[in-house]
């Protein structure tokens, strides 16, 4: 459905912003595919009457929490999840900037086609994604990108034989607030 014109502010109380990572390297079998939730983020969505509008999102790089891990050697307990979050904080994101600002927003079947610039840790690259709106006001969108395109070296362990895959997926799944 088309998103009703208006201004919307979204955050963790309205939905989830999730990062999904895979694994790579000779010892990939030992690692886990991770589902990581960004627990502090804010998005502003403006939808114009004749289509168009803007999308902006900022996320706190120190607010990532590991929700689940699959496919690895052994299951991830709370201690391991906390340890991964600490590694993300200390070795990967280091509290840097995570911000998206649209440059063009166009009406698309079922929602919006959004193009813009994603700033990750001070490097800015263009990205594009669809925001799909459901009849119940549910808004979903997903992008995949390579960390290395933003100059981020994927986390590695076990003497470089176990790595987080370069490509990560970020999903937003939120419900438009009702006035």
């Amino acid at each position: 459905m088309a998103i009703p014109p208006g201004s919307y502010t979204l955050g963790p109380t309205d939905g989830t912003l999730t990062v999904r990572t895979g694994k790579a390297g000779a010892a990939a079998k030992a690692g886990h595919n991770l589902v990581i939730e960004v627990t502090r983020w804010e998005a502003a969505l403006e939808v114009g009457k004749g289509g168009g509008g803007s999308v902006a999102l900022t996320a706190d790089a120190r607010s990532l929490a590991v929700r689940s891990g699959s496919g690895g050697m052994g299951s991830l307990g709370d201690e391991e999840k906390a340890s991964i979050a600490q590694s993300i904080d200390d070795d990967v994101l280091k509290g840097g900037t995570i911000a998206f600002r649209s440059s063009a927003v166009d009406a698309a079947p079922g929602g919006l086609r959004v193009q813009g610039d994603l700033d990750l840790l001070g490097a800015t690259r263009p990205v594009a994604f669809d925001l799909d709106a459901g009849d119940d006001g549910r808004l979903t969108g997903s992008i995949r990108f390579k960390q290395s395109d933003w100059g981020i070296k994927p986390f590695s362990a076990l003497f470089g034989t176990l790595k987080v895959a370069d490509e990560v997926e970020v999903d937003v799944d939120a419900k438009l607030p009702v006035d």
Partner: protein
Amino acid sequence: MVELDHSFSTGKPTDYNWDAILDLDRLIPCVQGGRVVERTSPTAAKAEIKVKMGAMSMTFAGTVEVVEQDDAAHRALLKVKSREVGGQGHANADVAIDLNDGGGTIHTAAQITGKAASMGEGVVVSVLDGLIKDFTQRLGQI
């Protein structure tokens, strides 16, 4: 059985390197995650190594012993016997170190069983190779 060969250089005299590799208190911490638990004799120690795999880790505990020592040829054979803490696996190895001017070579014959081995020989070789390369770099700094 996995066999690997590595060479290393320290830029230091052979006599210095010889003393260093025979000093288990200095040698064992050169293995990432390795530590001496207790010296049991001038040529042997109880030791453990914690191998970090991201958030998960495996700890092996056992003994390291210099079983052959040729002072004239600067050649030593170390025997590592260890068992996975809290698991069924073993990690045993014969490590032959042969010093030459300013460095040396290491021949490792390792036998890994249990959870670590279940990842496949290719993985075990890659990880051991990484571990020994890291070890040789640290060896150059002692």
